[in-house]
């Protein structure tokens, strides 16, 4: 359930009042989730759930432990506090423990949209029924997922810190398949405001791509120039973002480690056309303004003109190395350029246009090598035009090579993010390695 800010403050005070630890931190996670799922042009499941979880971290010197519950009666709250204290007393000292934070200043990140919070099962069903009906008439089998979530994160400490952040989010995605199973298209988006969600447009885009991708031809694997749509870029960049860790780099176990010691901060690792930033207060992409410790999210430049500028740095690692912690990665934006997708296609003699990727996994952290599969619309571009659909490829490639070989970049747009809001551009890049062909549609 979603508490108001006053209710959240009262609850955290009540819990901190039960604490006998030297220091304590309380987190609140209130959530109301609602969704409708559809497949083969029909609604399959639909549901809603509400929950409120309280976590308490108890600290005695350098000993700490956490316990959580979603039972809100007095006895359960007292029990969870006692449980965390009992565990903390038994825990050995943690030399890396950083003391509980006092009050902090947070960026204003307005992320609550009342119309989105009030979306009903009937509203979701209406959009899906219209999309499914149109798909059926066009010989398309549509499936998809429509989810709306209202969430409120709270944090308070025994040193007086308190913050509370209610927000709304929705995500809609749909996959359209031709009835003969030879074509598939996808479209989707995350939004923070109901007004930004256009179910009808996404449905038409997926359907159009399914028709255009039907009966693909097989091309041999090899190195190709690629034009990646924004979702395909996001699929790769979210894996790169996971590796932006200062400690791993300094410890010599990351692609961002400098042989002989230290990190590669200050090195130009990718094309000068590439910047990569987090901007927690960006309108329409607002992230959570604090992390699990209450540390503020801030604007961070990860890459600037191709140069590695920052790596995610925890409070402990910052204190050990006399630097500043970066705070959480609240969102991720590749600001991009001014090239259009159409201009990328027009400028390409021979290349592959990719809608999105699937099942991406790390192969080698040494080079950030990833493998995965193209999906839901893969096309050959020849002599400045889309020539025909092609069979999907498996790739083995590093996102750093992709960004190093960039030729053109579009303006970014919001995509379906991996846990955080993301805005990514389309990118044209050369020498992208497709290692085998897949029969999958």
């Amino acid at each position, binding site marked *: 359930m979603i508490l108001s800010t006053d209710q959240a403050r009262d609850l955290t005070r009540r819990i901190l009042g039960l604490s006998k630890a030297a220091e304590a931190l309380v987190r609140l996670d209130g959530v109301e989730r609602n969704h409708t799922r559809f497949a083969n042009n029909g609604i399959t499941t639909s549901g809603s759930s509400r929950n409120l979880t309280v976590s308490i971290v108890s600290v005695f010197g350098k000993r700490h432990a956490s316990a959580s519950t*979603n039972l809100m009666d007095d006895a359960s709250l007292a029990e969870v506090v006692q449980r965390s204290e009992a565990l903390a007393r038994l825990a050995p000292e943690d030399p890396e423990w950083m003391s509980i934070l006092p009050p902090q200043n947070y960026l204003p990140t307005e992320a609550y949209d009342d119309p989105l919070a009030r979306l009903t099962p009937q509203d979701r069903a209406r959009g899906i029924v219209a999309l499914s009906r149109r798909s059926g008439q066009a010989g398309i089998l549509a*499936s998809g997922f429509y989810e709306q979530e209202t969430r409120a994160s709270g944090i308070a400490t025994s040193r007086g810190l308190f913050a509370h952040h209610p927000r709304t989010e929705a995500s809609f995605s749909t996959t359209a398949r031709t009835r003969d199973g030879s074509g598939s298209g996808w479209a989707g988006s995350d939004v923070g405001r109901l007004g930004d969600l256009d179910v009808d447009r996404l449905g038409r885009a997926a359907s159009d791509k399914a028709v255009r991708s039907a009966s693909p031809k097989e091309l041999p694997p090899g190195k190709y120039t690629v034009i990646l749509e924004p979702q395909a870029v996001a699929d790769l960049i979210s894996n790169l973002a996971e590796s932006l860790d200062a400690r791993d780099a300094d410890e010599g176990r990351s692609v961002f480690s400098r042989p002989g010691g230290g990190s590669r901060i200050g090195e130009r690792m990718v094309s000068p056309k590439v910047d990569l930033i987090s901007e927690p207060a960006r309108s329409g992409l607002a992230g959570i303004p604090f992390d699990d410790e209450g540390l503020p999210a801030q604007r961070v430049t990860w890459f600037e003109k191709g140069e590695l500028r920052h790596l995610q740095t925890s409070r402990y690692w910052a204190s050990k190395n006399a630097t500043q912690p970066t705070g959480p990665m609240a969102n991720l934006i590749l600001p991009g350029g001014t090239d259009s997708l159409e201009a990328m296609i027009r400028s390409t003699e021979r290349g592959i246009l990719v809608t999105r990727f699937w099942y991406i996994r790390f192969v080698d952290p040494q080079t950030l090598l990833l493998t995965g599969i193209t999906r839901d619309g893969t096309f050959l571009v020849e002599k400045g035009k889309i020539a025909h659909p092609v069979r999907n490829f498996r790739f083995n490639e590093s996102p750093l090579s992709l960004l190093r070989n960039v030729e053109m970049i579009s303006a970014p747009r919001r995509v379906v993010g991996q846990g955080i809001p993301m805005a990514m551009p389309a990118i044209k890049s050369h020498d992208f390695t497709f290692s085998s062909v897949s029969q999958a549609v």
Partner: protein
Amino acid sequence: MKELTSLALEVARSSGAGYADILINRYRNQRLSAREDHLTGLSDSESFGFGVRALVRGAWGFAASNEVARDEINRVALLAVATAKANIPGRREPVRLAPVPAYEDVWQTPYVKDPLRVPLSRKVDLLLAINREALRVPGVKYCSSSLHFVREDKVFASTEGTYLEQVLVRCNPAYTVTAVDGRTGRFDTRSHDLPPAAYGYEHVEEAHLVEDAPRIAEEAVRKLRARPVTPGMRDLVLHPSNLWLTIHESVGHPTELDRALGYEANFAGTSFATPDKLGKLRFGSPIVNFVGDRILPGGLATVGYDDEGVRAQRWHLVRDGLFVDYQTTREQAHWIGQKASNGCAHADSWASIPFQRMPNVSLLPGERPLSVEELIAGVEDGIYIVGDGSYSIDQQRYNFQFSGQFFLEIKKGKLGEPLRDLAYQANTTEFWNACDGIGGPEAWMTHGTFYDGKGEPGQINAVSHACSPARFRQINILNTERKL
């Protein structure tokens, strides 16, 4: 508890549901993590709540809440029915549930030691001892270890008269050693092969985790100095610690009936194994037999009953190489002309809708004793792979690529030097048809994962896969080393 389940079912029925069920679940999770010489995390969480599923004129509605109290149960049951009614215009055809007997029963994981009652100091000492032993090996720089214990207390009741109480317990011990060569900048890792399992703390105590640490650490260092693999077509012998994941991805997921019929198309995809291929598709060579199995001892998906009250069972998915059956729920059985579900409904939380999830899917052993050494002896030029590594498979489960933890060359029937930068890539049915040797019953062992993902909203499922070592002829080997 029965009073609360009866209330939910009565409210749902009287407001229009033709069928309804309720799950009331309590989860306890305890997690410990350590790196090098200190503990980095210690947490204990509890989550309690209920979810009501209502079927109204063939359309589903679901609602859930963490307030297990009469008023809230009333509100949630009404909301589930209202949601189902909202979906009636959008459903394609009415849901039909396969019949199931009404059961009243209790069941629990057969564990010896409740992991949540084992003193914390023993768990902490274990993690620090693992790390200490691993770090003694020259070349090893880091070691991270962890323990994760889960206990689920779940109650299921339906309007058809079933009332079930189950207690599920599982353990996940793990550690990873990192070796770094500061001079060259190369680094590599080796994770222990011990699987998670549905046993009590005895699973952790009997595992020799500390005793194995020097060997695991030495193998991390050996990987650093190993020779890069030469790519090409080679024979493979796969240890169960590697093969389980290949089974999971290439056999477990494609034989989910909802996936095969397009219900997962927007997320994980569909399947090459469509119902028209039942009884016809040569999935593997004639020695290949796969079973769906919810009664496997220690199996993470082993239960007394599934999450819609169907009794646990075991059945063939592939028999003598032929694709013969699917994983199903009550709603799905009639889609392929079957009269009963084989018990694969699962919800990962009281807040989640039960849907079709993977049972333990296992490769049956060969009938006669056959050791891994004998399998290796039959290879002229090949590779032996231990442990699971990188894994990826396409959206219809044809093209996959897997790696591993430790690779040894096989030359003239004998194990040779370690190799690195290796992945194997194949098409599912070509791979299983290339299987010409499966170890005997004495070599059969169970591996698995706590974290199999499926569905929207995403749910996780703990699942195991038992197998013996097996041999595959002429599989495509990739060298994954790159220069940036």
